[in-house]
């Protein structure tokens, strides 16, 4: 199936720091990070806390400009959000609490500039696709965490962008919900043929969902290694029990463990003395 693929997102020598040296809040989030993301692939960014994965995601999405380096999407450097090409799913529910689920999905399209007639139609279709057909007129606070993230995903999908950026979308959910959502996501995305960048903390999730996994070092973050997961989409739930899965997961663990330790030590060192 794979032919010569084009680069959808090119990240070149991106570095980012918050504040100036000497500021209380100064932090170097990313250091000389480079990565080419291919069109149609699903890539996971994984690494210890504070390694800059979310920062990089925001930079890719045009929500912020890195202090050094460039991010190119479709060959053009990123200067701001590209709502027609890039859609986001955030960790905390970014659903508007005063709108019903379907109103939330439609509102995204209002911002994007979709015609009125088409909005309702697309909204209904994407909500059905994520399994929320019966909950369209509910308010976000009436839904469980997992359902809220499904709604957020539906909103992102309805925008029909080529690229989907997901920042730990299942981070706030319990293990079982994550598992179910992960399996459903794999099915959904296999149909959708989008370029997806997915930030996560979970090793299992990364191996299960991604084509490639980019492992980040501790802060200041940079890509330490890239692992390929050669398994056809959609991923079967049984994949998790195979030896291949275990091997890949162990490899990830090995790469990550030291970085996680390093990050923990950095965190302790950064705390003010009692």
């Amino acid at each position: 199936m794979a032919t010569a693929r084009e680069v959808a997102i090119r990240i070149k020598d991106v570095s980012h720091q918050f504040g100036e040296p000497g500021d209380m809040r100064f932090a170097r989030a990313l250091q000389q990070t480079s990565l080419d993301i291919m069109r149609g692939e699903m890539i996971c960014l994984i690494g210890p806390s504070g390694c800059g994965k979310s920062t990089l995601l925001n930079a890719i999405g045009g929500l912020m400009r890195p202090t050094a380096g460039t991010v190119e999407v479709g060959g053009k450097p990123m200067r701001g959000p590209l709502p027609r090409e890039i859609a986001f799913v955030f960790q905390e529910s970014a659903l508007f609490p005063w709108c019903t689920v379907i109103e939330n999905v439609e509102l995204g399209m209002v911002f994007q500039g979709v015609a009125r007639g088409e909005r309702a139609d697309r909204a209904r279709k994407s909500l059905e696709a994520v399994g929320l057909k019966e909950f369209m007129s509910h308010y976000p606070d009436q839904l469980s965490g997992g359902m809220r993230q499904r709604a957020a995903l539906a909103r992102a999908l309805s925008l029909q962008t080529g690229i989907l950026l997901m920042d730990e979308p299942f981070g706030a959910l319990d293990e079982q919900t994550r598992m179910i959502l992960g399996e459903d996501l794999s099915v959904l995305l296999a149909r959708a043929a989008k370029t997806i960048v997915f930030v996560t903390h979970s090793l299992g999730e990364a191996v299960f969902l991604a084509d490639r996994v980019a492992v980040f070092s501790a802060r200041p973050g940079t890509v330490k290694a890239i692992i390929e997961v050669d398994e056809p989409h959609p991923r079967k739930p049984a994949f998790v029990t195979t030896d291949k899965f275990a091997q890949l997961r162990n490899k990830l663990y090995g790469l990550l463990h030291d970085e996680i330790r390093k990050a923990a030590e950095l965190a302790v060192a950064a705390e003010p003395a009692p």
Partner: protein
Amino acid sequence: MIAPRQRRDALMSRGLQLGFLLALILLWYFATASGRINPVLLPNPLTVWHNLVQVLRSGEYWPDLQVTLSEIAVAFAISCVNGLLLGYLISRSQYLIAVFEPLLAGIYSIPMILFLPLFVLFFGLGSWSKIALGAVISFFPIALNTIAGFGYVDRILIRSARSMGASNAQLLRYVLLPAALPVVLTGLRIGFTVTVLAVFGSETIASFAGLGHRIAQLADAMETARMFAYIAFAVVIAAVLNALMAVVESRARRQ
């Protein structure tokens, strides 16, 4: 260490505040100095200042201030005693709280200034009508806060004290009082502020003495400059009283 950007923002907002206030004062001065505005309506700030200094130096404010302060003191004392006592008694029982708290809150929501004419009917235009109004209005926040303070003490504290053999008196002294104190003190502070407002208000409307009355009297006599001076004086007095009460509250809390 504050980042340079934060310091700059703080300076800018402080600058804008001062600039705004300065602009207002200058506008006031030039509007009146130009002679376009009737000095009876808006006196010159310098004239007001002159009047204020005169009032302060001559001690002319003293009788009115005495009346106002004594009314506030007596009214507050009455509402304190009643509010604390009744509040405490109601707080002894969850049932009583459930019955009376909403009632008290409901009555408090009526603008009680309406009762002033009734008190004037009872007590005449003298100090007692102001004291009555002040006492009645400030009773409510004190009682409500006392109920809240004593009534919602964490049950677990009471249970553990009892399990260690505390008597009723000991329970009151060592558990209930310290736990309830912050909320009760807040109620006293609010009650005090309300007393000050009620006394000023009722003096303005129906009285023959006191700072509020003086201001109203000067308005009737169209002596606007002096009235402005008294208004400034009254506002400062109110601010000082409230600040004193706030200090008392925070000192008592620290005990």
